[in-house]
């Protein structure tokens, strides 16, 4: 066991953190609302090679792993960066994992094509509420037992009809009948590839929520140290302290679980998929509780759009909920954990 990051990972953490701090301050996040996409920032993220950082070097990627992707996702979450890095990384990994030359994998790796994945299997002609669907060139969709790549209609930047939502996410419905459709895989292989992609999305969204929670806690702490009520700093009230202490504890647990899930993926463990789901679940609870409390401690100011904490509060609730009701995922866990029916 070694819970320290490697020197390379520490260097990446520093670099990614600095990048997002500089390039995605709150003004950039606010300016990108309600769509939740900043094209200029996205170009910079692509130039850094982040979306393909976990793609093997011989496929043109960075040759790193999901621990490195999770690091990028954590700091994306911390700064609420309005770029679909998680979706692009998941889709790029999926495209490069599917055999055959017909795939647009190379374009995705090169950053010339923005791809995403519909999280839920589709029955009709519409993939509903696809994350990054409003800005993606290509959507990977599981329909029946076919894994499809759907291009168009329309390019990035909301042409596909962004749906206004709580989390300022570029989600959109994508039609399968008016786009250009390629079959990537069929049968059990298709289903398994899609499931893997969903697990990757869970893993990275869990890491992003870790970043959201960490920053929301800091905003809360900064505010209560600064503001006074009844003659003392708000930070001096025991009920405030104890909620912050609980949230801080949960955040450390979230961190351990997020990176354990990423490590398990890179180590090829059979438990990796289940750990990804568990990480997303716990990170969701932690991020929402932390952001809610920090917002509440802001008093009336927490309710104003002026303070940044509301940006975190809305996303803490919204980002994971795109994948659906948590309780359903909890209810599936015992079978996955103890019967090993599905990782």
């Amino acid at each position, binding site marked *: 066991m070694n819970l320290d990051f490697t020197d390379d990972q520490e260097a990446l953490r520093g670099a990614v953190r600095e990048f997002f701090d500089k390039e995605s301050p709150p003004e950039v996040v606010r300016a990108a609302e309600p769509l939740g996409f900043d094209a200029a920032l996205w170009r910079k993220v692509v130039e850094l090679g982040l979306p393909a950082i976990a793609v093997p070097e011989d496929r043109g990627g960075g040759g790193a792993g999901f621990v490195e992707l999770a690091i990028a996702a954590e700091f994306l979450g911390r700064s609420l960066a309005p770029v679909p890095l998680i979706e692009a990384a998941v889709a790029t990994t999926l495209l490069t994992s599917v055999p055959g030359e017909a795939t647009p994998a190379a374009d995705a790796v090169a950053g010339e094509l923005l791809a995403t994945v519909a999280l839920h299997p589709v029955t009709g002609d519409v993939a509903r509420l696809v994350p990054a669907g409003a800005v993606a060139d290509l959507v990977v969709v599981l329909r029946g037992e076919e894994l499809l790549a759907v291009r168009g209609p329309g390019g990035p930047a909301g042409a596909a009809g962004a*749906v206004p939502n709580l989390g300022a996410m570029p989600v959109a419905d994508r039609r399968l009948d008016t786009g250009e459709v390629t079959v990537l895989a069929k049968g059990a292989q298709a289903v398994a590839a899609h499931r893997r992609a969903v697990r990757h999305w869970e893993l990275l969204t869990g890491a992003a929520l870790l970043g959201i929670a960490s920053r929301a806690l800091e905003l809360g702490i900064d505010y209560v140290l600064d503001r006074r009520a009844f003659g003392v700093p708000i930070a001096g009230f025991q009920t405030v302290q104890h909620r912050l202490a609980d949230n801080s504890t949960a955040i450390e647990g979230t961190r351990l679980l997020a990176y354990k899930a990423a490590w398990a993926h890179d180590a090829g463990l059979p438990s990796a998929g289940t750990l990804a789901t568990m990480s997303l679940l716990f990170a969701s609870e932690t991020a929402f509780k932390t952001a809610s409390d920090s917002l509440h401690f802001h008093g009336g100011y927490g309710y104003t759009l002026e303070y940044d904490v509301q940006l975190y509060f809305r996303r803490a609730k919204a980002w994971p909920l795109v994948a659906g009701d948590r309780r359903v995922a909890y209810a599936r866990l015992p079978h996955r954990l103890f019967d090993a029916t599905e990782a």
Partner: protein
Amino acid sequence: MDFWESDDLAEHREAARAWVEANVRPEWVDEQRRSGCHQTMELHALLARDGILAAGWPPQYGGGDVDPGFAAAVFDECARLGLHFDGWATTVMVLHTVQHVGTEAQKRQYIPAALRGELLIALGYSEPDSGSDVAAAKTTAVRDGAEWVVNGQKMFTSTAQVCSHVFVLARTAPDAPKHKGLSLFLVPTDAPGFEVQPIHTLGGQVTNATFYTGVRVPDTALIGEADQGWSVMRVALVYERGVSSPTSVERTVADDLAAWAREARRPDGTAVLDDPLVAERIGRIAVEEEVSRLLGRWMNWNAAKGGVPGPEGSMRKLFWSEAGQRHFSEALDILGAEGLLAPEAPGAPAGGMFEHDFRNAVVTTIYGGASEVLRDIIAERHLGLPRSRPSL
């Protein structure tokens, strides 16, 4: 003992609906949402015209013949449509205060005008540096002959953009202890030196910061005695805890969720409500909403008996707001991705009201007594525990 609910509303429901049908324009709901101002002056004028504002008030102060039950039913029907009356709600609080502590001249000056719809009053308690700790107000009022000169700034002066007055808590004895040097003034919003600046909120409401620069008001603007503002304000607070959500509105999250879940379908074609994981949460919400309602009835019952107010107002506000926040959060979880869709999104469930109400709910545990303040009050005054913080 009986829990029969008043039949007043039922009795007047039909007439109230007819009044609403004849007078209320549905676009006002959208307008309130668009403008973020939870007070529609056109509607207010009609309510005044037909004596609905004046229902139940003593005739010597402008009260009229309209049955209070009918008036309540009209407000209830309007609320069902989604209309808010936040400016009137605060006005009523202040009118009650005037009735309790004002001079006879003040009662005759302010109450009839308000009931005629000519006067609307926002609350000016909070300041940039004092939220829950209202008594830390720094705004000053200095006597100058027969006038007072007000200087300072107030925060969260909701509906001030359409109000004729702000009920301003100001420090009149700067050297007195914190709670002993405060006074309350009805400051006209057309007075020179008064300014208003919008503050946009998470729930879409637009509240205000209001600024007071050498605003001069006559002595008759002082409500209650000078330096007695803290006790004057607490008269109004009793009413505020009741007003924070109209108990007459019986629309509930459990109802709305059940209605949605009965129609919505899982991919396998079954109704969402048949999923025990969904039904269980709706059941739990229904129980807690029933408790909220009962605590509200208890508060109203005690108020109607007219005795010394007990802990019921604080308890009801605390339970209702904390439970409501949980319920809206759970509602979004139940709805999944669809729950995130804003009212502007086509096809959002219940027109996006769950998403909107979720955003709006965060302020309910702050205004009208933050949950922490209410718990302190319950612990100290009801349970007899020692004071746990510097001052209340």
